[in-house]
């Protein structure tokens, strides 16, 4: 093949356009499915923090249950979810997050409507060591937070690891850094939420 100047350029343009077209098409046809998956993930998380049992893993069922119980409220730049039984709001869920050992941890916390009880927590993303800090996303760790009393806390120390005085939750053995970061941002975010929302209380 003779070495021409323009041929490689034209060749590259044609081949790039061809493959980009394929990708654009694939992206177009899957956009809805991907968006739906992401919503399902969020719904699962919120239902979990509110401690609502979902009868099946089917995304459609999850959507149904979610719409039945959970509502959404936009305040400024943050989205807050609430759970209603009948017409009455019984709890709030809000995003929490902070830096841990390896990276950012993000999740949701639900507390009762009168701010007296922690209903549940869940993490949506983290990059902690699997088997160590990564165990924050295991059920035994998250279940400890269910029904935690928030009224006795002093100085915004809602979560204290045992065996410290007033301790109410077990930390993860071998993952002190992660455990401490998690309790730190949980305490801060819960404190901030209650103050902002509750005002005078």
């Amino acid at each position, binding site marked *: 093949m003779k*070495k021409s100047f323009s041929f490689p350029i034209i060749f*590259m343009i044609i081949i790039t356009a061809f*493959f980009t077209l394929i990708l654009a098409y694939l*992206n177009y046809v899957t956009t809805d*499915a991907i968006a739906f*998956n992401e919503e399902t993930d969020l719904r699962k998380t919120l239902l979990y923090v509110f401690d609502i049992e979902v009868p099946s893993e089917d995304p459609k069922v999850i959507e149904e249950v979610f719409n039945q119980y959970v509502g959404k409220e936009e305040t400024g730049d943050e989205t807050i979810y609430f759970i209603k039984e009948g017409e009455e709001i019984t709890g709030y869920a809000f995003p929490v997050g902070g830096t841990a050992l390896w990276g950012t941890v993000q999740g949701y916390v639900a507390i009762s409507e009168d701010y007296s009880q922690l209903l549940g927590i869940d993490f949506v993303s983290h990059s902690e060591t699997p088997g*160590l800090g990564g165990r924050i996303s295991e059920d035994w760790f998250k279940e400890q937070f269910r029904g935690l009393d928030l009224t006795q806390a002093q100085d915004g120390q809602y979560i204290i690891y045992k065996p410290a005085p007033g301790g109410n939750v077990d930390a993860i053995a071998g993952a002190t850094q992660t455990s401490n970061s998690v309790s730190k941002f949980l305490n801060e975010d819960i404190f901030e939420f209650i103050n902002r929302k509750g005002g005078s209380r």
Partner: protein
Amino acid sequence: MAGDSPKKIFKKGIWDDNPIFKQVVGICSALAVTNLMLNSLIMGLGLIFVTAFSELTVSIIRKFTPKHIRMMVQVLIISVYVIIVDIFLKAYYPEMSKALGPYVGLIITNCIIMGRCEGYAQNNPPLNSFLDGIASGLGYTIILLAISFIRELFGFGTIFGYRVLGDWWTNWTIMVMPPAAFFILGVIVWWARSRTTEEEKEGGAIN
């Protein structure tokens, strides 16, 4: 060259020229995703798909591709297939996509794909290239599964998520951490090479 039989191609990809322990390419992902067997399997399948189809495409257009821009073309083709895998997982296997995280996108940096495109597909007919991609990918997947078998068994006491060791088992934290993959990979390379030294002395493979 056109006469490479499928049997020969597979023997080369899986043993004689195994990407991991013979060519020592694709190591980064072998260390990263091998903490669970399921992750390794999906990673392996993704790589088989990308390598096979990239090689096929490169081979089909090899006669028209100007030689001095062939690398650019290869990178373009590889990235297209990687993005297809990424989109596919996100849309139909969101759990898997979450578990593998950024590693799916990083399939593109796996030297095996580029190496095979440049070293094989560039000079061989499409069907052979396609098979070569599957063979190399298989060779890679088998090693990944071997490493992750050991890591998951000792690190979590499970295999493919099923508990096989009882409650008495104390998880070896080191197995979950990246260094464990280094040790196991080292042992595997050592074992494999010690079995093939004589062939190499006779003037065989790459070194």
